[in-house]
């Protein structure tokens, strides 16, 4: 049984103490937003990107891990681990997965590198990485860890609503006519992260109804291990909306804490910087 090291990227939003404890390698990401490229990584926040987002309309966006950073991580871990497990955001939402896979080719025969699609993003990805890291710490073999992660995948749910439609239009999730009239009508689509994609569900017109939909969604689970509130970096500076969501969640799920997390640049690029939603882990 060999030593297993885990790689993910900054969008997993892992707490620094967890990263240190489990020797997790956290890759930076490059965010191409319009004509500009922003590097976001450990010790390098996304503030500049968010300033651009605050300035105007959505722009074409692409997220990737820098090839050099992946290669460097592989080279380093190659020496200290027998197995490298790479868990990244859904391949539908970023190019990181493809980059990590092609970079692994060069290490064929020298080191076992397993690249897994989390089929999720943000906190959902983070939950998977955390579970993998704990299992590795306990000394479980790679196969078991991969099985564990695959088993967890269908039990992680994320639902959001957004009130800006231009990011959905940029991402090809709404037509331009829909965006125009939808914006006039203040339409707020609900979006589910499922099978690695962001899928539009129903739409509502008022914030209250959107919040109620989120609470109803959480209320429908028979058992729940964790619920997180995820919000965009530019949402709701006075916290009023988040407070209302907490109140509604307390009704469907009393006596619980709902950690509030600002979601990562990847979700900001897909949902826009002002979405609000929940991540639910049922437990297995």
């Amino acid at each position: 049984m060999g030593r297993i090291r885990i790689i993910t990227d900054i969008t997993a939003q892992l707490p620094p103490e967890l990263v240190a404890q489990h020797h997790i390698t956290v890759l930076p990401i490059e965010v191409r937003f319009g004509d500009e490229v922003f590097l976001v990584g450990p010790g390098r926040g996304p503030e500049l990107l968010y300033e651009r987002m605050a300035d105007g309309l959505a722009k074409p966006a692409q997220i990737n891990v820098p090839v050099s950073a992946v290669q460097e991580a592989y080279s380093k871990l190659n020496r200290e681990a027998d197995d490298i497990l790479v868990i990244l955001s859904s391949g539908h939402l970023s190019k990181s997965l493809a980059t990590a896979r092609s970079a692994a080719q060069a290490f064929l025969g020298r080191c076992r590198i397993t690249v897994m699609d989390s089929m999720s993003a943000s906190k959902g990805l983070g939950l998977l990485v955390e579970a993998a890291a704990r299992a590795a710490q306990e000394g479980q073999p790679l196969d078991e860890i991969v099985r564990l992660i695959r088993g967890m995948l269908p039990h992680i749910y994320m639902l959001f609503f957004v009130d800006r439609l231009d990011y959905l239009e940029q991402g090809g999730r709404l037509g331009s006519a829909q965006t125009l009239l939808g914006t006039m009508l203040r339409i707020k689509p609900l979006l589910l992260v499922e099978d690695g994609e962001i899928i539009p569900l129903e739409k509502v017109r008022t914030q209250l109804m959107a919040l109620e939909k989120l609470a109803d969604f959480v209320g429908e689970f028979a058992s729940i291990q964790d619920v997180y509130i995820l919000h965009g970096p530019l949402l709701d500076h006075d916290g009023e909306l988040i407070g209302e969501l907490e109140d509604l969640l307390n009704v469907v799920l009393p006596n619980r804490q709902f950690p509030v997390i600002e979601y990562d640049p990847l979700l900001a690029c897909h949902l826009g910087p002002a979405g609000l939603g929940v991540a639910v882990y049922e437990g297995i």
Partner: protein
Amino acid sequence: MTDERTRSKEALDISPRENPDAPILLCDGRGLKRLIRFGLAWLERHQEAINALNVYPVPDGDTGTNMLLTMQSAYQEIHDSPEEEVGVIAQKVAHGALMGARGNSGVILSQIFRGFARSLEKVQAFDTVQFAAALREAATTAYKGVIKPVEGTILTVARELAEASVTAAASSQDLRYVLEHVVHAAQESVARTPTLLPVLAEAGVVDAGGQGLLVILEGMLRYAKGEPVSIDSELAAAVDLHALHPEGEEGYGYDIQFIVHGEGLQVEEIRETIASMGDCALVVGDSRAVKVHVHSPEPGTPINYGTSLGSLSRVIVENMQEQYQDFILSKAQRPTVPAEPLSGIGTVVVAPGPGLTKVFESLGASAVVSGGQTMNPSTESILNAIESIASDEVIVLPNNKNIVLAAQQAQTLSAKRVEVVRTVTVPQGISALLSLNYQADLATNARVMTEAAKVVETVEITQAIRSVQIDGVSVEEGEFIGLVNGKLRVRGDSPNQTTISALRETDAKAYEIITVYYGESISPEEAEQLADQIEKQFPEQEVEVVDGGQPHYYYILSVE
């Protein structure tokens, strides 16, 4: 009717008879055809009078017009048919009425014909007893067609005249005598409708649908008594035009319809076979009779197949070029590319006005049927929209209370799985369509959409088309009136001022968004002025202004 004059070639010439009082013992297919024609002509003459019986003083789906269009569609099915069997003519009438049914009264009228036809199946010519039995079946079928039958409407009239016909038929073999009693009973029944339905009494009118049925029967009686009715030349021209089939052009194929009669017919099997022969296959029926409707470049194939199963009736082969032109002219239905291909569920919505059509399209409606107040689309145009979209599961949003029944008729006629979500205003329809969840199944969506329709309040601003006192509000003809959730609540001197008063009648202050859809007679500037006024009155609420383009209604507002 097999007295002397029915044998004359032109039915509308009431030729002098040797004995005008001789009893009429039987009525065959040709006789029924003329009865229908006289009923139609008499109805046309009274169309406006029936329209004026609207309970609400709003430009609404006019009952007289709706019943007339339904009757016209019924008559077009038979006007050039030489058929002598009355059962077959009755079937054709029922089919024509069904497909052309507009508005609730038209749909109920089509049900009346359906029951009438069912009772006369295989009958060569009916006598008084068979006539009475058919009227009874007509009333029963009409009641069944409505989920919650309301007394004091056309239903009551249909039932009471049927009861009278049974009594009359027991004492006479003369159809004319029975028809006289039927008309008399219908008159009394119509006169009683305000005592059964308080809203009629309040408005000081009798039930318009009941009156329409009475007028049709009166026209028939006039024929039986040899009294002329003037046939509007325009109508005659329209009917004749329809009879002219233009020379076929290749490329559009044929529209083939027939009914197979036989024993132990396998509907599923027939449906599959027919579907393989062409497009837009519609196969409905039971083990004894199956209605087939298919578009095919080769009309012989489905017809030959039908002949192999049993005897055919009501064979109609039409060149679709003609229908295509009708379609282009009417633009009744605008199938669009589904904006959200993720869903297997299609949506058909009814929308008045180009702006509202755009709104519904942008929200992902698969097909928009134009229609609404005063322009209720027919069952057939809703059915066509259902059939035109790519999904096998369809949700229909009628968005008007007078279109709900036609939508439900289209539902029963379609081979697809169809749910009608009973939205009765445009804002309800928008709210329902938004809540369509592409991940959920048909039944769940229908339930969720019904719920979503309830959370929005609707304000409609129009002009009173007559003076009336209703819902405790007294209005003069020409005054501006505001309806809140379909009830007349306020009146005013200008559309904008009336809107503000109507909004005060809602719970607007408790909601987030007020949306103004302005009609075709309102300029964008006027709409913006209204929005400013609303914002002053309701500073907490967001106000949005959208070009609705609807006729008759200055403004439609949603509060949610």
